[in-house]
């Protein structure tokens, strides 16, 4: 697997997934499991969380791209993920622009700037 490289997984709305699949990231493996999830109005949070965790567990995925408004729904699961691989990247969606203050990574990086640290 290391020789072939890893995949990019996508959890997003229809337009985000279609765009990234156009870019050529899509895969259906031997078990017909896709590396993307199209989140629609009727998609439950449990389903999103389970898919996210299944992507984390797969060792053939290197990066998970997720719309920020969907990341907000499963924030606890994203905050709990501390490993470098797979890297989780929050991206904007059509209706929800990217907000850096909500990003898990940036909050982790900026979280240390307290008065206590610089005494």
């Amino acid at each position, binding site marked *: 697997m290391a020789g072939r490289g890893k995949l990019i997984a996508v959890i997003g709305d229809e337009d985000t997934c279609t765009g990234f699949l*156009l870019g050529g990231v899509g895969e259906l493996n031997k078990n017909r499991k896709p590396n993307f999830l199209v989140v629609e109005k009727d998609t439950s949070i449990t389903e999103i969380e389970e898919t996210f965790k299944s992507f984390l567990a797969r060792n053939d995925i290197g990066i998970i791209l997720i719309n920020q408004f969907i990341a907000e729904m499963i924030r606890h699961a994203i905050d709990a993920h501390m490993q470098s691989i797979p890297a989780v990247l929050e991206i904007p969606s059509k209706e929800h622009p990217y907000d850096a203050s909500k990003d898990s990574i940036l909050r982790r990086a900026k979280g240390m700037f307290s008065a206590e640290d610089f005494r």
Partner: protein
Amino acid sequence: MTLVECSENVDEKLLLLMEQLQLLEEKRNTLNTLIEQGWLSMSKARYSMGNKQVSTLQYASEMEPLVRIHVRSQDSGGSEVEFNTVRLETGKDVTSVEDIGPQEEGVRKRTRPKGETATEKQESDKLGREKVPEKKNQVIPQQDPLRWFGILVPQSLRHAQMSFKQVIELSAEIASLQVSLLNTKRELRNRLQDKQAVQKETQVSDR
């Protein structure tokens, strides 16, 4: 280690962290602009093709990734990780010349002349066995995802594809940057702890 050295170490890491944060913000802005361009082009394509012509319904039943990520650990501990994208060629480029004619190589002789010896037979069997794996090694053509949406797709859909290809490459760079940012933050925290320990020591010795 003196207090001055500790402070210099902390300053060095803090400056690095600030630089990385700035770079990340720049890359993020570029990524957001590219994604917006991609959506706009996709909407234009929808306008000319019809609302339901660019949707999940057109996804292919078989998908092979055309982009893969190569993950490289830069240090032995594996904490510093770099992501690089590798794009595979699509089918159009891989099989540029179409094969015409029978798929099986050569013509089989079903009625053998009586004079054929046993050794010739063995040789021909051997050749036959050797030829079989060659066919398996042929490259399976990859389908360009643009073809899911039709043969003659509008130019705007091609533009959308170009934008998202750039977004994919940029997202790998951002992922690498995020990992190094978290590492720098960890190192900075360690240096701060070192500095605080030295500060305490000097305070005790002064008394």
